[in-house]
């Protein structure tokens, strides 16, 4: 995984600098780095001869692009109907407060990213969340605290 601008350039150099190739180029950056960094936007701006504002406008239009580097661990909170009814909203709120970040962000130490997903398909376990690949269900606040403490 690389974040520096010169490496970013390499990977999309093979796209012709035409506006219609901007989205594919962005997809490639996101695939490789896990997010679209400021350095990548700057390099893309140079390559496509566009302003950074131009590129940011495109990137921010699509929900698929992320702006923050994913943390070592990713927590996804289920916001499906079943989980919602059973208080996943509070779960998400507790996580935001505890981690001091919003959805789509990563803690400053780079350890944890927070996201929400539509439905994990674990409705029986509601409220549920996934940490990396592991599903946790029927969560309570003390349990949540324990899980967070164990993430290193």
């Amino acid at each position, binding site marked *: 995984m690389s974040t520096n601008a010169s490496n970013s350039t390499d990977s999309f150099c093979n796209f012709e600098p035409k506006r219609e190739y901007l989205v594919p180029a962005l997809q490639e950056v996101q695939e490789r780095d896990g997010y679209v960094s400021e350095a990548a936007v700057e390099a893309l*701006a140079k390559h496509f001869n566009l*302003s*950074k*504002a131009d590129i*940011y406008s495109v990137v921010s239009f699509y929900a698929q692009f992320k702006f923050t580097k994913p943390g070592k661990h990713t927590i996804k909170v289920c916001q499906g109907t079943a989980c919602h009814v059973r208080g996943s909203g509070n779960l998400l709120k507790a996580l935001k407060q505890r981690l001091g970040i919003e959805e789509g962000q990563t803690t400053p130490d780079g350890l944890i990213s927070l996201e929400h997903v539509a439905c994990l398909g674990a409705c029986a376990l509601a409220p549920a969340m996934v940490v990396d690949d592991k599903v946790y269900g029927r969560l309570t606040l003390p349990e949540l605290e324990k899980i967070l403490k164990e993430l290193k």
Partner: protein
Amino acid sequence: MKTLNLTIDGVKVEAQEGMTVLQAARAAGLYIPSLCAHKDLSPYGACRLCVVEIDGLRGTPTACTTPAAEGMNVRTNTPGLELQRRHTLELMLSGHPSPCLTCDSRNDCESVKKTPAKAGASTRCSLCSNRPTCAVRSVAIGSYSRDIGLPVTYSADKIEKSDPFIDRDHNLCVLCSICARVCEKLHDKPAISITKRGKDAKIASAFGKDWILEECTFCGACVDECPTGSLTDRWSKWYGAPDTEIESYCQFCPKRCKISLKIKDGRLVSTGMVSLDKESTLCAIGRFAYPQVFNSRHRLTRPYAKIGGEMAPASWDETLESAAKILGAAGGGKLLVISGENLSDETRSGVCDLIKGLKADFVEMPYGTTAADLPKDVADKIGSYDAVLCLGNYLTVENAKKAKSLIAADFVKTRAQKEADVLIPFAVFAETGGTYTDKNGSKICISAAVKPSGMQRPPAGILADLLMKLNLPHEPGFKPSNIELKGDPHKDKKALPRVIYGSLIADFVPDLRDFGQEQSGEYAPKKGHLIGEPYEILENTLLAPNFHMLKIKAPEMAKYAKPGQFAILMADANSERSPFTIANWDAKEGWVKFVIEEVGRSSAELGAKKAGEYLATVSGPLGTPLDFSQFDSAKNILLLGGCYGIAAIYPLAREFKKRGKRVVAAIEASSAYLLYYKDKLREVSDELIIKTRDGTEGTRGGASDVYGEIGGDFDAAIAIGCVFMMKQNSRVAKKTGKKSLCALNPIMVDGTGMCGACRVSVGGETKFACVHGPFFDLDKVDFDELAKRRSAYSVLEVDAMPRHEGGKCHQQ
């Protein structure tokens, strides 16, 4: 070019090939509502207000993107189109603070409030600096806006003030993208763009960062073209639309860009581009700094001379006489003349004649240098001359002290001028004209556009008078300046001019610190000393946009406060004194509460204070409390409150209640999001009636409607609110014939009887609200006269506004 024949709304119209339907209609003087179409930008087609029906074309195409064609038959205002437009406006304006657009009393209100109030946030047109020129507003009003069923989703997003010069209020943005398109047109690549989408969509720079950190050069074009009040020039916005624009040249740097001087009532209030094309782009100095330097409170506006050993204000004649005497005595190598390079040909030629005539030594300070750059060998020799003549700020205090005799000429006051024997004020920029020949020999001629604010005169004329007094001839052989510009200020923020006539521009324009420009400390404020005890703020809650509730620790005041009284507050030692009604108090806990509407300098400073911080002054209680004995025989009391008055009627309601009266409170606001204190008022009244101008809460209308409907059932009524609100209620009061009062606190300026701002005619007698009031007979106050006198204070109030929110030093 081919001429096309079209029919628009049954009118035969000629158009040129290549025109759009919208252009064809406009050329023929026909109106089609439009918003995102801009005469200098290519068609965009986003707002969908310009929809039309065209025979043979399906649906409702947008006139601004449809090319005119031979034989076209266009309809612009069928019932179907009008409905469609109304829906479009509903969507566009639902998040917009639009109660004024749908208000039934709009015309009446705006005839009283001729200029919008200088509010912190534009929560409606009457608090929006864009009102005089707003395109959205005129389209909405033109489209029967009162029938628009606007769902109100105003979200009171915080106004972005962290950039230099530009305020951004995204609540007002209609996403027409004119700003971004203008930026792209002028700079090829836009520094800003519409980012995100849906309800999050907003105009922003890359990553939503402050613009100063990104690609923006602060040319200001987007601000000038934005059709709404979203993007505004923080410094000039409240002056209102200019009445005159004069094409001239910028005199800050040798690039001498063409510049449009925007003048209102004879005063330069802003500057801008002469036309919207790449060649006419301005840099941040030309667009934003120019009017701020020009109008700086540090300008030197009158001459001084040492007469009888003391520096004192002097007439021009006395001043020039003294100067000529000093110069004449120092002829023949005993005189040192210092001037800058960036001067008009006429001024340079005058300096040249003087030097030659008096055989003086001459130091020309290169473009961009200041007093600190005076060569050391020159500085060392200052004491050896009989006299020094310095044009511009080129002497440090230390060097000025060395001069045996000093004639200082400048456009601003400086500390070194304390050492001068003669002080000469220069007219500069728009105040003066002149020829500038550049290094290639091409000339531009500038003529003066406004009168100087004081006694200052153009430097060339002053020099000519001196030469005459000294009997010196005009000498040939002067050379025009030959300044090389390093870098392009239009492209590179680092290449912006930093110095003007030896002074640092950032000294007058603090926002330039964000561009990495330094201040000299020349004008650093002296530490103010506090008057009396500082008062701790226990709480500052935003009750509604612009309405702050300040809870202040003030045990003495809390002990003695009575309903109807006010106090004088000062945020800082050098703030203005301003009176505010005491809204609540608790003698036991030792606090008082004020509800402060942010509509000017003092209230903005107070609103910015946080809990735990201190106010410099809180003195009170002042003013005559309401005399409740006059209501002894009354049983039913009606209290009417609007704006700040909602809080002001609270202590009255509480006291009336305590005295066993039946109290009905009727409060009004433009829209639901501007209401506050509802629960508090319910606690102390038998009934609370809510009115909103747009009908978003309670019933549609104002407090005077309530008064008109049920006033007959009450023994007395008291109305407190803005001048317009009280005027409306006074009309009703005249009819009821019952006891009625108003409180005139909102018109007081310093609350001491000194300023005269609160002078009112009550039943033909002249009174001062702060001394004789605040309560007067509602039916006897002459509100029309009051409104007229209020508007006279407008310009002075703008001058006093704190308008330097940038300057946060982004370049650390």
